[in-house]
Every structure is written in structure tokens, then in C-alpha cells.
């Protein structure tokens, strides 16, 4: 009985050690972190977004996300971009699609996007586990 109680307490303890999902953006400014949408808290424990930057090419917004796998195994993920105009309206095409992303153990990856037209002024990056 005492043994079972100890195991129960230990399991509760380790549950509390699980990531809240906030750590994935630990080094990023909160305003920048708000541009990232991580599909689940489980995924948030396995990847870390290390850098978010943007530039313009030919008047088109070009964002880039750097992320790093925090686990040793291969992860099959999916990502997509959402685009917003100056007023904050979502102008992503209704056909906005998810793209596959394979991240190997502890690999760093850079994902670059390009806005569909010059009216886009901001973006959001979505990442999730393969469905």
C-alpha cells in the first residue's frame, strides 16, 4: 500500500514537470511568440522555436522561422502560414494548405514563407503533428 502511494506521488510529481507549452518560445519576445501556433502542448515539449524574422522581397513579405527538435527521434510534422493585411484581417486563401515537415533527431530547421501578395503585412506560423 505504501509502495502504491509512493508511485502515485511520483507520477503526480513528474506530471507537474511536463512543459506548459510556454518553454517553446523561451528566448523570443512575446509579441513575436504570438505569431507562432503550436498544435498541442505535447508538440510544444518536443520542438523549440529559436528565431523568427522577416524581410521583404519585391514588396512581398518573407518570414522565416528557425526551429529545433528537442528529442532524439524523427518527427513527422505539418506546417502552414496564415497571412493578414494591415487591418489584421486574415487574407489567407481558402485553399491554404498544410505542408509536410520531417525533423530529424535534435535537428535545426529553417522554414521560409512568402506572402501571396503585397497587401499582406503580417503572418502567423502554424505547426502540428502529422494528422
Amino acid at each position, binding site marked *: 500500500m505504501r509502495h502504491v502511494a509512493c508511485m502515485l506521488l511520483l507520477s503526480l510529481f513528474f506530471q507537474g514537470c511536463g512543459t506548459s507549452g510556454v518553454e517553446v518560445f523561451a528566448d523570443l519576445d512575446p509579441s513575436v511568440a504570438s505569431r507562432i501556433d503550436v498544435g498541442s502542448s505535447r508538440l510544444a515539449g518536443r520542438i523549440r522555436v529559436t528565431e523568427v524574422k522577416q524581410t521583404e*522581397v*519585391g514588396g512581398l513579405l518573407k518570414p522565416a522561422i528557425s526551429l529545433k527538435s528537442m528529442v532524439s527521434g524523427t518527427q513527422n510534422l505539418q506546417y502552414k502560414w496564415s497571412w493578414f493585411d494591415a487591418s489584421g484581417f486574415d487574407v489567407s486563401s481558402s*485553399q491554404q*494548405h498544410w505542408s509536410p515537415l520531417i525533423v530529424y533527431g535534435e535537428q535545426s530547421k529553417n522554414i521560409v514563407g512568402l506572402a501571396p*501578395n503585397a497587401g499582406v503585412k503580417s503572418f502567423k506560423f502554424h505547426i502540428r503533428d502529422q*494528422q
Partner: protein
Amino acid sequence: MRTTLKLITLSSLLAASACGPATVQYGDAGSVQAVSTDFGSSDLQQIAGTLVDSMLMFPPIVEETSKRRPVLMIDRVKNKTMQHIDTESITDSIRARMIKSGKFRFIDRTTDSQAIAEVRYQQESGLTKSGGAVQFGKQLAPEFMLTANLSEIEQRNSDVRDVYYKFTMNLKNLTTGILEWSDEKEIRKTSTRSMFGR
């Protein structure tokens, strides 16, 4: 006896729950669905997105499109795979994406016969207001042509089927003959037979 009866009842209920009419529901057109190693909708979307972005970011294209909107035409994709693929849907997606960027204008040759018939009707039917009929000989000519190839390389053994697709697209200057831009998108799809399945 009672246990056997319970097991039979439970099995019957489970079997009955698997029967019934098929359900239909809408799916997500933007989702990544690798149902098989055959060329699919997700592959089409990836190709269109990647190659158009590549062209829009290419410095000489950026410079050209900063001053004006060049006129393009897109040729039929050469399907070098063993599959029947509607390559026109690939070119339609590419063209739609490029037009939406606001950087290019397109000539559509696929509707020329309908356009000619309509213009002739306007000119000859007598129904169009005087001076209002569209005239022949005023259309813009394309300055550039987009061409593309889709090829596949397949490898298989008793358990694994691995298919590699390569989509290559080129932008040719019709005046000088120079290939102004070229890029390719590679996709690999692998299916592995499970130990206890087909």
C-alpha cells in the same frame, strides 16, 4: 455458461456496431493526405506553392516585376510518369497563384476558339451596338513561356515501395530564347507493408 453468454452478447453487439450505412462528411482540402504513393492533391499543392514562391523571390524576376507586369503563357506539363495525372490542374494552380501575386499577367490559349467565336458573333450578328464589338488583332502577345516536366523514379521490393517525383519548371524569354528562371521540386513517398496486413 453465464460467462459464455455474456461473451456472445458482447461480440454480437460489437459486430452489429460495425454494420450500418456508410457515412459521408466533408474533408479538409488543405490537409496533407498520403493515402498512397501515387501523385495526389497534397503533392500538387506543394509543387504549386514552392515553385511560384521560388520564382517570385528570384532577383532578376523581382527586378523585372518591380517595373511592370510581364505577360506570360503556360504550356502543358509533360507528364513523364506512368500515372494518369491531370497536369492541367497543376498549371491552373500555378497560374492562379501567380496572378494573385499581382506580379504577372497571363494569356490563356485554351479558350482561344471560344474567344474567336464570340468576337465573330459580336462583329457579324448585328446585335452588338455600333463600334462596341471587340476587334481582332489587338490582343497582347506573351513575352515569356512557362514549361514544366513531371517525372518519377520508382523502387520497390516485397515490403517497400518508394516513389520519387521531380517537377521541373522553366521560364523562357520568347524574344531572346533565354531561360530566365528554372527550379525543381522533389517529393518522395514511401509505403511500407505492415507485418500482418496487405
